[in-house]
């Protein structure tokens, strides 16, 4: 089942709901309205069409859209064929099939309009066919302000009085309100009625009587219809009927007393009381009966007879211009079509002047009613079907004062410079204006609209409209945007006149949507040869007129495209609606020229301060929104919703969820690839990063510690070689190299000093070397000590090293081995260690007895050092014959030179040093601070050779030389090998680093 759309909040409710789930609004009326609207929405209109009575023409139903088919079927089911749909030829519109779809459906919706006060179309049919029903006064409270817009138009318009004065006439054509205006732009064209009213001030209708559409049905309805029925009628329609029952005076009173809030602003603007109050007596008199005629109808008569009125083109609503242009081809078609399904009022128009051709050339008088301007609107294309319209047109003819609708008068007034040479009404100007607004340029030689032909044949005023065709450029500025074709190419393709018999005025452009109708009508004519039905509803799919496309804002289109047409997406409550249609007014309506407003004297809505009455947007208007209705996709959705179950316990129920649809609509969710779209560069960078991370996480190989084995082996080899070299000492008289024959000067000086010692000379020997150097110093000093022993000198030993006294005894003992005749106990005194080291040298130099009071053996012998036999007569250092310092340290030798040598005075100071201390002490010898010097084992050996007593020094000199040679060889060979291995071993390391 289709859901019910709440009229208040616009949200969808279940079909069984009695009140709106969201706002609590009762859905009784809405549900009724939805019921028939659901039928309109349903896509199975063909199925429903089969349920229609046999009287309906199946062909036409098959061609027309569903919603129209529904409306028409209901109309035909419940109501007899209206009289006014009978064409002068007696053909019914259904039979002819030329009745406009939407117009036919207007009558078909009457029964469903009960309880649905929104459906003005149904009210239209009800008013026509339910005259027998008693009509009660219309309770004002039941008239929604949003629905009475048209009735107010009629009520406010003094030109509508002729219609009221003739109750038998049908109500004014609802054609001025095509389905398109029900869209948000609906007010735009209605707003132009203000301009019409302003124009009417200048040119009132003269012959309102001539236009007498068949409003009898409406008059009866006004008088007899029960309030409940009247509630179903749209306000504008009831308002139309109401004045018909009243006198003009009463009508005026009613108009004046009507609450301003009960009518829309645009209508108030269109027909203010002041506007008509300013009417000239001529206009009033001229209007006569026709003053009750709606202004838009009066406009026809005025347009006919007011070729000289030169009403400004701005007063003409744009949509009428388009309708006028579109009417021309439709009128041409009407020649071949029997008048059928015309409303009464149109038939009446046709009947009044049956012989008056509606078309200039092709129209057949009497047989075919001229195509009224309404035919230019969707669904109304066959003037033959609209006798009332013919009558209206006839009445609009200048010779007869007809009740010309206001808008018809406006048509005539709009022509500032009517030209007879241009018989067609200048509806093309509307099209051009619309095209101009759309940024397009229409060629003036475009096809003339059909409506112009109708006017030309029906009335001179209509002809004046046609004459206005040449002035379209002047009046094109007033054309609204929605009249402009959206696509110029489309205009060119669609504005081709259907009938070549109709001569379109040059320079007249046909709007797209009119061309569509024209083409559709031609298709019908070719296929049927009867009354033209549009093959396609103007709202179907891409056939939607461009003016309707222009109406919709992009935002609305977006919403409409995304929301099902059955679901009202707008959350706007009806209370928020200030206009009959919650839409945006077109620019041409919002921007009413100030000069024009001043001319008409009609205060604008803002100026008057009148607020738009809050009105509920009729559900049928919402449902008839073209954009949503014509979108194929949306229609398809509707079809699924309205599908009737054919089997099972739910057979016959519509809207049952289809399991197979769900299963088929289900599709496998898309599987998205997880592969990244990575470029080569990113891939390489990622690889680098990955490598870096891998390098960080991978454990570093701990470099193996180099084995110490090779070093140890090498050291052992070195030691073995050195030991082997030292083993040469075991060889007797082994010597690698003989000592040089030349002795060093210091050695010779020392030798000479010793050799020159007097007998029993006292020699002071300072044994200041460490035990580690005893091996070298012993062999270096043994020759000198032996030489002293040979000289039988007294020797006193002193030392600044703690181990010195012991080493001195050791040295004496070793030398004494070779000179056993030398008595150590008598000839030597070991003064021991001087406390304080070198610090005590100065004291020892100045006072040796005080510095070294006891000898080393004093604790044993108890003999003080200076009382020892060898020390007898010695009190100071100057008492010594020679001072010899045995040292391995340059510092110790320097200390003796610095501290003792100055004190020695004439006592020579000589030194026996190690080989390493010789270079530092050699300068002191060269400077004369020391008088003799020998160093190292080589010096000892040379000293032995110099004395002629080869001893231990020469014995170990061969071993020393061999050891030194071994060391030299090891360093050279080992260095070369090491250098080679180092180069070869570093290359892999460098390669590894790289």
């Amino acid at each position, binding site marked *: 089942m289709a859901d019910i759309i709440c009229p208040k909040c616009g949200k969808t409710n279940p079909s069984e709901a009695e009140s709106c789930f969201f706002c609590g609004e009762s859905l009784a009326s809405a549900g009724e309205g939805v019921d028939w609207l659901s039928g309109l929405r349903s896509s199975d209109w063909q199925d429903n069409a089969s349920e229609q009575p046999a009287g309906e023409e199946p062909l036409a139903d098959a061609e027309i859209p569903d919603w129209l088919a529904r409306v028409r079927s209901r109309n035909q089911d419940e109501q007899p064929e209206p009289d006014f749909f009978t064409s002068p030829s007696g053909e019914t519109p259904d039979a002819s099939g030329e009745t406009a779809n939407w117009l036919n459906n207007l009558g078909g919706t009457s029964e469903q309009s009960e309880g649905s006060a929104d459906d003005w179309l149904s009210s239209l049919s009800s008013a026509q066919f339910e005259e027998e029903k008693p009509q009660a006064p219309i309770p004002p409270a039941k008239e929604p302000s949003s629905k009475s817009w048209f009735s107010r138009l009629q009520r406010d318009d003094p030109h509508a009085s002729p219609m009221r004065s003739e109750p038998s006439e049908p109500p004014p054509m609802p054609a001025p309100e095509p389905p398109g205006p029900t869209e948000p732009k609906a007010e735009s064209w209605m707003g132009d009625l203000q301009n019409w009213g302003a124009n009417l001030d200048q040119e009132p209708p003269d012959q309102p009587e001539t236009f007498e559409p068949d409003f009898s049905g409406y008059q009866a309805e006004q008088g007899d219809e029960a309030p409940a029925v009247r509630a179903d009628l749209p306000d504008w329609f009831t308002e139309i009927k109401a004045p018909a029952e009243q006198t003009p005076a009463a009508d005026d009173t009613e108009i004046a007393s009507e609450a301003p809030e009960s009518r829309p602003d645009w209508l108030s603007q269109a027909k203010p009381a002041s506007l008509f109050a300013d009417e000239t007596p001529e206009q009033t008199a001229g209007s006569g009966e026709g003053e009750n005629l709606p202004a838009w109808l009066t406009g026809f008569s005025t347009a006919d007879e007011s070729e000289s009125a030169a009403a400004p083109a701005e007063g003409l609503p744009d949509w009428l211009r388009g309708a006028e242009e579109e009417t021309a081809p439709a009128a041409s078609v009407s020649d071949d079509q029997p008048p059928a399904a015309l409303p009464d009022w149109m038939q009446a128009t046709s009947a009044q002047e049956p012989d008056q051709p509606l078309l200039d050339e092709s129209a057949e008088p009497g047989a075919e009613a001229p195509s009224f301007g309404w035919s230019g609107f969707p669904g109304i294309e066959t003037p033959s079907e609209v006798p009332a319209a013919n009558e209206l047109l006839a009445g609009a003819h200048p010779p007869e004062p007809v009740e010309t609708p206001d808008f018809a008068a406006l048509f005539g007034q709009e022509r500032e410079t009517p030209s007879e040479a241009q018989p067609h009404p200048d509806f093309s100007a509307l099209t051009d204006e619309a095209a101009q607004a759309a940024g397009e340029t229409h060629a003036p030689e475009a096809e003339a609209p059909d409506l112009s032909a109708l006017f030309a044949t029906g009335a001179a005023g209509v002809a004046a409209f046609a004459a206005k065709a040449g002035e379209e450029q002047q009046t094109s500025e007033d054309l609204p945007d929605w009249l402009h074709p959206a696509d110029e190419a489309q205009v060119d393709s669609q504005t081709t006149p259907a009938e070549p018999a109709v001569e379109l005025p040059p320079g007249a452009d046909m709007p797209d949507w009119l061309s569509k109708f024209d083409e559709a009508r031609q298709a019908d004519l070719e296929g049927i040869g009867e009354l033209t039905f549009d093959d396609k509803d103007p709202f179907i799919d891409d056939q939607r007129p461009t003016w309707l496309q222009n109406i919709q804002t992009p935002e609305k289109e977006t919403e409409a495209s995304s929301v099902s047409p059955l679901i009202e997406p707008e959350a706007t409550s009806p209370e928020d609606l200030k206009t009959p249609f919650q839409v945006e007014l077109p620019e041409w309506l919002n921007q009413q020229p100030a000069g024009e407003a001043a001319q008409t004297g009609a205060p604008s809505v803002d100026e008057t301060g009148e607020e738009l009455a809050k009105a509920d947007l009729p559900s049928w208007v919402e449902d008839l929104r073209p954009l949503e209705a014509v979108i194929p996709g949306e229609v398809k959705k509707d079809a699924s919703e309205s599908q009737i179950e054919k089997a099972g316990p739910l057979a016959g129920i519509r809207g049952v969820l289809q399991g197979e649809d769900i299963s088929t609509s289900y599709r496998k969710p898309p599987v998205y690839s997880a592969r990244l779209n990575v470029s080569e560069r990113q891939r390489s960078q990622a690889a680098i990063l990955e490598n870096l991370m891998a390098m960080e996480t991978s454990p570093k190989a701990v470099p193996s510690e180099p084995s110490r084995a090779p070093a140890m082996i090498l050291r052992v080899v070195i030691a073995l070689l050195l030991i082997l070299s030292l083993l040469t000492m075991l060889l007797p008289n082994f010597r690698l190299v003989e000592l040089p*024959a030349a002795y060093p000067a210091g050695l010779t000086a020392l030798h000479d000093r010793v050799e020159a010692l007097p007998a029993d000379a006292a020699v002071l020997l300072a044994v200041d070397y460490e035990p580690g150097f005893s091996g070298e110093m012993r062999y270096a000093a043994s020759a000198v000590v032996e030489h002293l022993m040979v000289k039988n000198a007294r020797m006193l030993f002193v030392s600044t090293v703690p181990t010195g006294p012991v080493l001195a005894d050791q040295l004496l003992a070793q030398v004494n081995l070779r000179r056993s005749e030398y008595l150590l106990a008598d000839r030597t005194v070991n003064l021991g260690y001087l406390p*304080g080291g070198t610090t005590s040298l100065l004291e020892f130099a100045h006072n040796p007895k005080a510095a070294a009071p006891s000898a080393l053996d004093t604790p044993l012998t108890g003999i003080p050092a200076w009382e020892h036999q060898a020390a007898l007569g010695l009190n100071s250092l100057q008492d010594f014959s020679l001072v010899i310092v045995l040292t391995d340290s340059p510092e110790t030798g320097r200390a003796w030179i610095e501290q003792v040598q100055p004190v020695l005075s004439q006592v020579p100071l000589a030194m026996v040093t190690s080989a390493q201390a010789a*270079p530092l002490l*050699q300068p002191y010898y060269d400077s004369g601070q020391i008088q003799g010097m020998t160093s190292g084992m080589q010096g000892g050996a040379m000293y032995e050779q110099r004395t002629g007593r080869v001893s231990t020094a020469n014995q170990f*000199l061969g071993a020393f*030389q061999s050891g030194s040679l071994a*060391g030299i060889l090891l360093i050279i060979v080992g260095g070369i090998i090491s250098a080679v291995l180092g180069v070869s071993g570093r290359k892999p390391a460098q390669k590894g680093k790289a």
Partner: protein
Amino acid sequence: MAISVGLIVLLGYLIPPEMVEFGFILTLRSILVGWAVILAGVAALVGVLNLFLVHVGRMTAKRNPDRYSILLVVFFVLSLGLGLYFTPADPQYQKVVTAIQVPVETSLMAILVVTLTFSSIRLFQRRKGTMAVVFAASALVFLLLGSGLLAPVQDLPGVGGLLAFIQRLPIAGGRGILLGIALGSLTAGLRILLGTDRPYSG
């Protein structure tokens, strides 16, 4: 005080012993130098005691006692006791030095020979450059010169002079070192005497 003592000792070097009238300065200098010698002797004793106590502490440590310290302390006490008992003049006691200390220190020198030889071999493996070559060459030359292996060629004309020149190179270097030492000692003495440096202030 340090400066005055220094100045007094310095004056003692400048005053010849013949100048009797300035004999008190020499006497004062002798007293001060005697104090210095005593202080140096005491300092050696203090050093010996400090060494003994340190090794006693290591020996008695609760965690990881040093076994070598035990040996040191034991032999220190033993040497001291034997020296006090036998006196240093006793030939048997002197064997402590001649039979122990002399071979030990001499063995260290022998090990040094092997180590230096090994290092000289690895020199070109660790360091490559001019200085390494110069160092190795100078070592070899002076080894040859010091060992007397070049003595036969010293008689050759030109060679003896060259070898003599080469042998004087270390003497020249030694003289320069001595000059530097002398200047450094003079400057240090002057700074102490002028009060610029006070190494004894702690």
